[in-house]
């Protein structure tokens, strides 16, 4: 199980299991007491059968996928995982912003995959509020990443007003 930082704190226990493969709905009863983050294909393929498995659930999108196919279903998910196959793949940053800003998703958005200390600040700016750290990451060190910068120029999820709307238009002369 990866260490998870959520809302700025290290979780003592994380109830979510990320299913990497879209096997079949029967796996959902495999571990009582655990909740699952399903791959997109799982949701799309087995949605009708999922009613037999009550309880909260999540979904995860790979970096080449977009939230559009689940736009009408977002209320079904407590958590949406966004995958980083490699840390240099930046597509999930756009997905996070779109989930927050366009679809107004207010649940947990979790970074999964190749998640390292040096990405966490930008991720948090784009709307991620939870982070499943890569196994070799030191969680205490990672906590410091969120204060790498005190503010940013852009409008983003954590600060919807760009700096120019907060500066107050002070002129030089």
């Amino acid at each position: 199980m990866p260490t998870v930082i959520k809302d700025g704190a290290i979780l003592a226990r994380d109830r979510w299991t990320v299913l990497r493969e879209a096997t079949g709905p029967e796996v959902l009863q495999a571990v009582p007491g655990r909740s699952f983050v399903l791959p997109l294909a799982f949701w799309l393929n087995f949605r009708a059968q999922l009613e037999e498995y009550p309880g909260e659930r999540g979904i995860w999108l790979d970096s080449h996928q977009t939230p559009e196919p689940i736009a009408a279903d977002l209320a079904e998910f407590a958590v949406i995982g966004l995958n980083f196959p490699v840390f240099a793949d930046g597509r999930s940053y756009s997905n996070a912003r779109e989930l927050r800003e366009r679809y107004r998703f207010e649940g947990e958005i979790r970074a999964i995959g190749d998640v390292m200390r040096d990405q966490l600040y930008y991720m948090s700016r784009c709307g991620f509020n939870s982070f499943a750290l890569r196994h070799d990451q030191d969680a205490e060190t990672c906590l410091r990443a969120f204060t790498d910068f005190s503010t940013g120029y852009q409008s983003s999820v954590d600060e919807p007003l760009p700096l120019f709307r907060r500066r107050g238009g002070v002129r030089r002369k």
Partner: protein
Amino acid sequence: MYVYDEYDHRMLAERVAQFRDQTARYVAGKLSDAEFLPLRLQNGLYIQRLAPMLRVAIPYGLLSSRQIRKLAFIARHFDKGYGHLTTRQNIQFNWPELAEAPDILAHLAEVEMHAIQTSGNCIRNVTTDHYAGVAADEVEDSRPWCELIRQWSTFHPEFAHLPRKFKIAVCGTPADQAATQVHDIGVYLIRAESGEVFFRILAGGGLGRTPVIGQVVFNHVEKQDLLTALEAIMRVYNREGRRDNKYKARIKILVRETGVEKFREKVHAEWERIRGSALTLTDAEIERCKSFFIDPDYVKRLNGSDVLVEKLRDDPEFARWHRRNVRPHKQPGYGIVTISLKQTGVAPGDITDGQLEFIADLTDKYSFGEARVSHKQNIILADVEQRRLYDLWRELSTQSLQTPALGLLTDIICCPGGDFCALANAKSIPVAEEIQRFFDDAAELEDIGDLQVNISGCMNACGHHHVGNIGILGVDKRGEEFYQISIGGSSAREASLAKILGPSFARDEVPGVMRTLVDVYQAEKRQDESFLNTYRRIGHEPFRQAVYADSH
């Protein structure tokens, strides 16, 4: 120029601290090479052939004398006493120590400079026409818009891991000296017949392996919508740009593979969603940014041109320099002066610590304490009184900085090439020097007139060879350096890509080929027609035939 406030200062200091920590973790083995790579690149640090190279941003080319002195200090204390101006309004230091990079960045921060996003797969330093704000025929000063884009793109959290590097140029002059159309995004300021000024935005231009001229994605964008329009393009590119092949990852390939119509639809659909959001520029912010770029205190009704007329008459060397290196200024009584960094025997764009300090003093004395660097690798003093041009020229002469080469065949754009760069297939600096030595008669050069020669040491095209009137590309043929020559390129408003002449040449043949090309031009030209216009009139064939005549 723009002056940092407490926010800018604080974020820059935080960046320096962040990179210091990252470098320490890398040195301690806690970050792998692969993990440190994008971090150091986005702080301007390459690992080069001989040593690390630090690329420092000069946002839209503007420098204060204080900043120039700091660059001199860095060249002296952390390098071998010189720096190199690049083709994207940056300055590179070729010999710093990796461990000292955070210290250099701290020094730069003292004078509101940095190396942020000067490399890596992110939005790079925004560039513009180096005559911005002083050109007589300008639509509007592009610098405030560049500053707005600089701030928006700096530390942009969504676009730090793009498929590939991303370059934006802004241009407000009809001539276009910013190579706007060969940028990933090119922004033009356009004046409508009503007098209103708006933006036209191109995307998908670029050089490198696949040279492309950008296409219009937004025909008409109101000023307040600039950043939302840019953000819409970036989001589509971040999502859909190819990540499976780094040679197909630039936005130009996405535009081509998607088709410009479809790409435009996607961008506009995205734009409709974010247009009018908080990112929409406010009048107050536009005014604030413009307030940093107001005219200096020009002397009105200057009556000093008698001095100039007399010196132009009496001193032919000065007159030649004046004809080439001084351009019309919007303010009567002033001129725009280019200090050429193309003297023979010096790598194009190279400048020593002593020259930097010397130029810093000149900017204070002659040009309100500010200078610009151009993508053509020269330095510009933008606001010099005409009556003082002669004094300035005399001072430049004491440091061999009076080369009257602006726009001439010897004003060569040249990448560092195989002497420094790990990517290069061939050397480029010695080729530039050989051409300069071959064409060493100032009167003849002036007679040949405007002729842009661009040299790249590999197909990554940092020397912009695709848009040279004559472009020279270094290629490797079974371990030997050869040079492929193209003609007819231009990065100006009527941009065009150069066409390859034919089989490549050994290095010692290049000056002779140049001579043949010039001979064809001079035989064919009509009146004052430039090389480029002659080429456009008579076409490729006469040049090709003349060059390859001997070998058939």
